[in-house]
Every structure is written in structure tokens, then in C-alpha cells.
């Protein structure tokens, strides 16, 4: 192709958390991959909080890892504190969160891209997606380069036509003083995508030495240090603490008195913000009854004194930020280093996408991360690896890699985005997953690693590790599958745990199902193999939740059956006379890929799905008939 400067299999636009995973997936699947980033010093930039994980987000990181992604490994390498959260609440919400050294994380991830032979990492701005005969054929850049490629993954984050706001001041540009991308939006519009405007924000960063930690509550990491990656072998290092403090009536008064100077409240921003991670001004307005809000002081890294004020996201003017910070206990002499701001940016409507995050209209065009209306590093990384895998499979001419809602949070995330869409930056939550007792962070490898074998992203070491874990689980289960005589020692144990005594003999398995009885307890009395913490956790949680999970079996079967019934792409829903008008409109707008997706569109009733099913069957039979 003489027109093109260079030729790649895949081009990834943007090298944030989505872009890095997409690029690594594509390259590790053997495809030559171009990664364009507007500023190579911002590869894998953590533009907001210096942490990775949290409830449901930690689940996503574990899943990315189980699929052979990088985020978990990088986060383990660069963590300065790690905690297992929600340990008192139940295994479905147990989640890891790491405080990260931002600079190291960026360097670690950038180097991983640099070292991959299949990746060309280049600083430039993508200005246009080239389409030939309806398919992606290449891209053009601001520097005038033209690259041929068969698939593009757009991971533009918050950089498309973005504008930042701090009080009355606003600037056309990206986060943290970086440039924005001004021409790609136009190319997307040209390709028929309707762009929307979303907004997010970040709190001020302050100088650590200006804070009085003695008046705050320190929060330390767990020891031994837990890790995200199933492949991390144990971490030994000193951890840095975070510090907890609170807003108070004085803080709230200052905010209320200056609301008219907030760009959101003054009407300068016309974008949709998040409800779950609201700015401090939103919290004060919406939860007026609360006399204080929690704030965490989190280090941005070990090589800097900058501290992130978690919980104080704001776009109020500079002087108001100074004043409100100084009302907070331990921050009376606080010196701001970077002021908080709100940022608005262009994104697409993700219902334009198929389950695998590829465009329904333009083969070869994939999207991942905030451009799809999501928020969060973890949500971005999860979509990144998913879109990267599917773009690579598309180039190779293979079937897409789709995870069901019953298989992974990634499945829930991408199904929610592509089928239901979102009217605000979408955040993962455990309550969005109907099979949340099954989709736990502890079993992400058991759920996903084998399934991902066909992508080629699973290293032999990772596979061996999984097989060992499965063997250990099996050996524990075998050992538990036997009856033991009820003796005094056993009944003494049961009594000490508030459990009723047994007579005759009893299955060990049945004892493990009891609340408060652990594998280790039983191993103290009976001959049980030492299987290690990971396998032990599986066996124990399964004993407790097996009943609930089984109760959802029928639902899972139904889901699989409906998701397995594909709807042809060229179907004309308006030609199906018996569908209700609302259903015809919704189905035509979203164009679901399967009956399962159709059934999850709001406004499509079970009767509509039944009609659709009969129509598809008759169409199938019709086609068969003609072929004969």
C-alpha cells in the first residue's frame, strides 16, 4: 500500500489504563501493534486517585489478571500499601485496594510496552480513522503520518475535546495541564457516532509537610501484604500509611456560601457527572443532614511529598479550596500544590457496540474505557484487555471472546454498557452483578483462566499455577467427603463455636457448611491435607455459598440458552408484525446480538422475546428450506 507510511495489524489510540491492556493483549497475541499517545510521559497515568482496587474494582483487577493482563502485576510491583477490604462483610464483597506510587506505576507500565517486540510506542495524536469498503483500514495523525491497520482500539480516556474547570477559570485542555485531542471527535462524528459530554473531577493535592498527621487517624496496610495477581509470589516491603480526617460544619459553610462560584452550579458545565463519586459541593447539597464527610490523605508516591485528598473532589475556585481545606482538622496550615478541577469530555453511546466492544456498523473499530462512558482505572483496564483480545481475534478471523454475566464482572460491565447503555459515567458495583456470590475476587482464575486459553494470553506458568490450585481444591474436597465419628473433641469444638453438637457420625463436608467452623478447625481434629490459603478459601466459601449458587443454576441455564440464540445482523425488526412498537424501536436502535441481549433491553418484554424467538425459528426454517 504505497499511500501508507507504515503498516500494523492493530493501532491502539491512547496509552492509559485501557490502552495499555489493549496494546499488550494484541501484541501478546502476536499482532504488530502501534500505540499512539499524545505524551509518552503520561502512559498509564493515574490522573486521579493514587489507588487501584476497591469493592468490585478489585474484582475487575483480579479478572484482568486471570485473563493474562498486566494491571494486577504492575499494581503489585508498585504498591506502597495494600489492604483486603470488607473482611467483616462476606466473601462476595471482599476486595483488595492498593495505594500506588503513581510515578513508578507509569514507568513500570511504559517499560512493559517498550520491551514488547510487537509494540511500537509513539508520541503523536490520532486525528482520523480511515475506513475502506466499510471496514477500518488505517489512521491519520497530527504529524501527518498515515498508518495502515486492520483494527483500531480507541482508548481516548477524557482527552477528546476536554475542558477543565476550576471556579471561574476554565481551559480547553486535558487533565493536569496536558493537551487534549481536538480532531478525533470530528472523525468519529463523520463516521456516524453521536458524541455525548460527560464530566468527572479530582480533588486538590497538598504538601505533606504542611499537614499535622498527629491530629488524624493513620491507616496502615495489611501484613502479610496481599496481592492482586495470582502470579505474585508474596510481597515484602515497608508500607506507607494513609491518614483519615473529616470535613466539618465550617467546611460546609464555606462551600455553601460559594456555591454560585462552582462551575457546575453556575451552569458553566453542561455535561453529565457521576452520582457515586460526587464532588464535595454535590455531597454538601445532596446530603444536607450530614455534619461531616470522611477524607483520606493518600501519598501520591514515595518520591514526592504530594498528598491526594480523597473525598474532596471539587471545581470550586482556588481561594475557596484554600479556605475550606484550612477548616479541616490537621490541615489548618495546609499548602495546596495542585488545585482540584472538573473535566468534561466527549464520549460515545456504548450501545453502538457489540458485546465484544467492536462497533456494530464499522468492522475493525473497537472502543474501551472512558470513551464508552465508564469511569475508573479498573473499568478501563477491563475493557482494554477485552477490546484488545476481540480486536486481535477479529484480525485473525476468529470468533469473538465473550464473557457472560454469570462468568465475570467484565461480562456484567460490558453487557451493561453495550445493552443498557449509561446516562452517566458508569462505575462497577457488586450489586449490578446478579450472580455476585459466584463472581468473587478469590475465584477469578478458576472462572476465567482456562476459558482464556484460546486467546494465547495465558502463560504456561499461569496455567500450571491454576492446575495446582485445582488439584489442591480437589484433594481437600475428597478428604472432606467422608464421615467421622462424633467424639468429645469434635463436640467441644462445635460448642466453642456456638454450633450444636452431633451424635453418631457426621460428614466433614456438612460440618464445614456450619457458620464459624473452618477447614483449619477440622484439620486440627481429623486428617485433612494442608492445601494452602488459596485452595482453602475456595473450599470454605463454596461450602457456605454452594446452596445459594445452586439456586441460581436454572437462571444461569436460561441466560446461557438465550445468549446462545444469535440474532442475525441484517434483521428488520419493523418487519416483525407482532412486536409491540416500543420493542421494535428499542430493538432497532440497539440491535442486540442475541435473544439474551434483547431480553435485557428495557422496554422489551418477555412476550416480545417470545415473538422474536418464533420469528427467528421460522426464518431459520425458511432459509433451510431454500437451501434444500
Amino acid at each position, binding site marked *: 500500500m504505497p499511500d501508507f507510511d507504515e503498516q500494523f495489524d492493530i493501532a491502539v489510540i491512547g496509552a492509559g489504563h485501557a490502552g495499555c491492556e489493549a496494546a499488550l493483549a494484541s501484541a501478546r497475541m502476536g499482532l504488530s501493534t502501534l500505540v499512539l499517545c499524545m505524551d509518552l510521559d503520561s502512559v498509564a497515568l493515574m490522573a486521579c*486517585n493514587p*489507588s487501584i482496587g*476497591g*469493592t*468490585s474494582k478489585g474484582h475487575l483487577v483480579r479478572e484482568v489478571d486471570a485473563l493474562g493482563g498486566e494491571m494486577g502485576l504492575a499494581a503489585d510491583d508498585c504498591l506502597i500499601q495494600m489492604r483486603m477490604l*470488607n473482611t467483616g*462483610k*462476606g*466473601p*462476595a*464483597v471482599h*476486595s483488595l*485496594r492498593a495505594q500506588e506510587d503513581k510515578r513508578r506505576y507509569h514507568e513500570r507500565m511504559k517499560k512493559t510496552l517498550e520491551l514488547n517486540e510487537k509494540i511500537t510506542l509513539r508520541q503523536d495524536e490520532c486525528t482520523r480513522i480511515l475506513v475502506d469498503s466499510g471496514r477500518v483500514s488505517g489512521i491519520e495523525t497530527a504529524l501527518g503520518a498515515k498508518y495502515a491497520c486492520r483494527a483500531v482500539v480507541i482508548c481516548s480516556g477524557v482527552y477528546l475535546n476536554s475542558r477543565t474547570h476550576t471556579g471561574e477559570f476554565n481551559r480547553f485542555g486535558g487533565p493536569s495541564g496536558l493537551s487534549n485531542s481536538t480532531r478525533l471527535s470530528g472523525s468519529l462524528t463523520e463516521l456516524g457516532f453521536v458524541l455525548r459530554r460527560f464530566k468527572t473531577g479530582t480533588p486538590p493535592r497538598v504538601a505533606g509537610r504542611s499537614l499535622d498527621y498527629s491530629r488524624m487517624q493513620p491507616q496502615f496496610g495489611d501484613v502479610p501484604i496481599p496481592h492482586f495477581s495470582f502470579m505474585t509470589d508474596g510481597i515484602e516491603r515497608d508500607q506507607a500509611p494513609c491518614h483519615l480526617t473529616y470535613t466539618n460544619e465550617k467546611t460546609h459553610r464555606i462551600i455553601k456560601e460559594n456555591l454560585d462560584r462552582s462551575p457546575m452550579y453556575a451552569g458553566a458545565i453542561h455535561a453529565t457527572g457521576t*452520582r*457515586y*463519586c*460526587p464532588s464535595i459541593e454535590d*455531597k454538601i447539597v*445532596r*446530603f444536607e443532614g*450530614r455534619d461531616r*464527610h*470522611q477524607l*483520606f490523605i493518600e501519598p501520591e508516591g514515595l518520591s514526592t511529598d504530594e498528598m491526594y485528598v*480523597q*473525598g474532596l473532589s471539587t471545581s470550586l475556585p482556588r481561594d475557596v479550596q484554600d479556605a475550606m481545606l484550612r477548616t479541616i482538622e490537621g490541615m489548618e496550615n495546609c499548602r495546596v500544590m495542585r488545585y482540584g478541577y472538573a473535566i468534561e469530555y466527549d464520549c460515545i453511546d456504548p450501545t453502538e457496540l457489540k458485546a465484544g466492544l467492536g462497533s456494530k456498523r464499522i468492522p475493525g473499530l473497537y472502543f474501551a474505557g472512558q470513551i464508552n462512558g465508564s469511569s475508573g482505572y479498573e473499568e478501563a483496564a477491563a475493557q482494554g484487555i477485552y477490546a484488545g483480545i476481540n480486536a486481535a481475534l477479529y484480525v485473525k478471523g476468529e470468533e469473538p471472546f465473550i464473557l457472560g454475566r454469570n462468568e465475570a464482572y467484565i461480562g456484567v460491565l460490558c453487557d451493561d454498557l453495550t445493552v*443498557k447503555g449509561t446516562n452517566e459515567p458508569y462505575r462497577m*458495583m*457488586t*450489586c*449490578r452483578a*446478579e450472580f*455476585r*456470590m459466584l463472581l468473587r475476587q478469590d475465584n477469578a482464575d478458576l472462572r476465567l483462566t482456562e476459558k482464556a486459553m484460546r486467546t494465547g494470553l495465558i502463560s504456561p506458568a499461569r496455567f500450571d499455577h491454576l492446575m495446582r490450585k485445582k488439584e489442591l481444591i480437589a484433594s481437600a474436597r475428597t478428604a472432606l467427603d467422608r464421615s467421622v465419628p462424633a467424639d468429645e473433641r469434635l463436640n467441644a469444638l462445635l460448642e466453642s463455636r456456638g454450633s450444636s453438637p452431633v451424635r453418631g457420625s457426621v460428614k466433614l463436608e456438612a460440618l464445614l457448611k456450619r*457458620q464459624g467452623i473452618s477447614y483449619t478447625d477440622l484439620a486440627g481434629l481429623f486428617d485433612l491435607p494442608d492445601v494452602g490459603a488459596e485452595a482453602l478459601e475456595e473450599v470454605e466459601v463454596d461450602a*457456605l*455459598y454452594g446452596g*445459594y449458587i445452586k439456586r441460581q443454576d436454572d437462571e444461569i441455564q436460561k441466560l446461557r*440458552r*438465550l445468549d446462545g*440464540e444469535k440474532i442475525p445482523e441484517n434483521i428488520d425488526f419493523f418487519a*416483525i*408484525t*407482532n412486536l409491540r412498537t416500543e420493542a421494535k424501536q428499542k430493538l432497532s436502535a440497539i440491535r442486540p446480538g442475541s*435473544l439474551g441481549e434483547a431480553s435485557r433491553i*428495557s*422496554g*422489551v*418484554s418477555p*412476550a*416480545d422475546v*417470545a*415473538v422474536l424467538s*418464533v*420469528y427467528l*425459528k*421460522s426464518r431459520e*426454517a*425458511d432459509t433451510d*428450506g431454500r437451501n434444500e
Partner: protein
Amino acid sequence: MINNDTVFALSTPVGGAIAIMRISGPDARRALETVFTGRIEPRRISYGSVTDPDGSKIDSCCAVFFEAPASYTGEDMAEIYCHGSRAVAVRLTERLMSVGFLRPAEAGEFTKRAYLSGKMDLAQAEAVMDLIYARAERSRKAALGQLEGRLSAVISDLYSRAKIALAELANYLEDDTDEVSLDAPALKNRIEELGSGIRSLAANGMRSRILRDGARVAIIGSPNVGKSSLLNALLLRERAIVTPVPGTTRDTLEEDLAIDGIPVVLVDTAGICETPDTVESMGVARSRREAEDADLVLWLADGTRELSDGDREILGSLSGKRTVAVITKADLDSVFFPDDNGTFCSFPAVRTSAVTGEGLTALKKLVADNLLPGGTDGAEDLITNSRHISALEGAADSLSDAADALTAGNFDGAFFSLHEAMESLASILGKDDPTEDLVDSIFADFCMGK
């Protein structure tokens, strides 16, 4: 949709001489083998009975089995021809439900299955879709009709209370900053309160069902306490409206009559085999089964002799059952009477004489009052759809599971059950995405952390 489940439905109107129950799907043969005693051979009619799991007979009937694809639906299919009374139909339906691998067919489903398994030609596809569409329209209209006004308000209120309880729990579970605490005992109380509200609504639904379909009233008692006499006496006085139902007078005697405007199926447990050795235990077993099925039990005690051990055993089997105590043979010398507050063994009680007719009017009033407290006038058709009633009962069960899980500190389990309850209620309201409502509620009512 591929049919790997097996469904059944009564394919004839209730009240004819013969009723046909159809079963279709891969487990049709197993279903027939489970409930029917006759020999099963494809396409051969066979005589036998439909029995309960303990072997006791529900009805004598004929049945035939069709092997796929030579059947109406093209699947394995069975048809049971039984007597046409409502009582038999109800018990046969319950029996088929109880086997565990069958579900009631949806309207039009047999036809749909026939089409899907290729038993109909393509021209009929449109007709089938019309059928589904018509059904959906009908149930939508029915749902709208039913959900207008007060019922809608009542269910919506229950739904939003379940949603708020779940949002509170979800917010606690989702929060990873230790900012949110949970008052588990208070939440548990709210869940229990909600559960009992839902249960009483379901009971209200039962009440509407009684008005529409009739109530089952069982006459239970030891031998020779006067069961048959009472039955006859009640029937005699209602002779004009008695409609004997053929085909049911085998082990039990069933009669339709109206008591104070309430349609009632009166079930007499007379005719049980009363061999001297086993009489008491069989009487108790029979009573237990009849009591389980009945909406109301008339427990008869012979007023002329002290309560026997058999009487006491029957009494024990009635605990928790809506019961009226009838002290019989009031025309003879009685050795006991109802207490001053009109009860006997803590059941509302009345003395009757089948000979003089004494107490029969009072008995009928007691029956009516206990079946429909507040009388027929106040019985507003709040809920009559049996799907709604069972959704409400399901929600109430889930709520009590949730309360138990909370007590045990099993928050994930509590979330699971509470979510189930919310979904049950959502299904009545026709809401297709309760999770979205939940997420909205979390954002609206709670301040999420990190």
C-alpha cells in the same frame, strides 16, 4: 427457545364430566410413571389411578402416552383423563406440581411447542405469534386493570420498602472506606415487618380466590362423632343448591354448596377403612392430609363422651390450621360444652345436633366468618391473580430467609434473599430492571465512598 423443561395444563374447562390433563416435554413419561398406577405403553389407553406419593388414591382415571414425535406437540406427551370436578382438577394439579420437575404451561404453550418442534408448517408461525401477542396483550390489560388504583399503590409501596432496605444493605456492603455502618437488628425488624405485611396481602389474595373459586372445608374427626350426619344435615338444609359432583365419592365425599354466599366444597372424610387396629392412626393420617388441603377445618368432637386419645391426636395435627370446633349430638346429654368465650380447645366452637338442627345456623355463620372475616362485602378484589399471590408468598419467604441470614451475620446471603424478594415484587409490577432501581436508590439515598 428450546424446550428442555416439561409442562402440564388442564386442557378442558373445569366442571365437565371429564377433564383432560396434558403433559408435554422430555419428562412426560417420567411424570406419568410417577403419578399414575396403570401400565404405560405408547398410544395405548390404560386404566389406573392417580395417587399421592404415599399411594393413596386421588382419582380413578385413564391415561395415554404419546412418544415423540408422534404427538400433538411433537414432544413426548401424556394425557390423563380424570373426573371433571374442580376438586379433582385442583388435587391433580397439586400432585403434578409436587413431582418437582414439571411446571404449569403458559397459555398457548402447547401450540407454540408444536410449532417449534416442527409439527406445524410455516404458515402457522404467524398464527402462533398472534397467539403469543394476544396473550401478552390480554395479560397486560389484565395486569393494568388489576394494578390500577389501590393494588398498584400497595405493591409499589412494598416494592420500594424492599428496595430501600436492600439499598441500605448494598450501600453498607459496597462501601469500602468503613464510613457506613449497618444497624443489622433494626434492618432485620424492618424486613420482618415488611414480610408480615406481604403475607397478609397474600392471605387477602387467598380470600379473593375463595370468593372466586370456592373454599375447601374439611370435616374431620374420630369415627362415629357424627361427620356424615353433619354433612347430610348441612346439605339437607341447602338442598336447593346442592350439586353433587360425580366421580369424587370414593375415599372422600365432596359436595358443593354455598354457605352465606361463599361457594364451599365440603369434604367428608367418611368411608375410610376403619379396621379396629389401625383406625386411629389412619384417621390421623387422613385428617392431616385433608387439613393440609383445606381452607378451613371443621373438627368434630362427640359431646356425649370424653375426648379419646384419637381425638387428641387429631387435635394435635390441626395446630396452626384454621379450624372450627363442632361439639356434636347436642340433643343428647353432653359431658362438655364450649368455654364461656365460645371456644373449645382454643378453637371457635359451636354445639350442633344433626337431629334437631340446633346450632346449624350458628355453625354456618362461624364457617363464613372464619373463611372470610369481615364478610363478603368487604372482600375487595385486591389480588386475585394466582401468579401474584404466589409471587407475594415467594417474596415473604425470601424476606424471612433474609432476616435469618442477617441474624447469622451472613450479609451476602441476606443480600441474595432480599434481592430475590425485590425481584418477586418487581415481577408483579412488571418492572424489568429492578437492579437499575436499586442502583438509583443507592445513589439517591446514600453517599458513596471512594
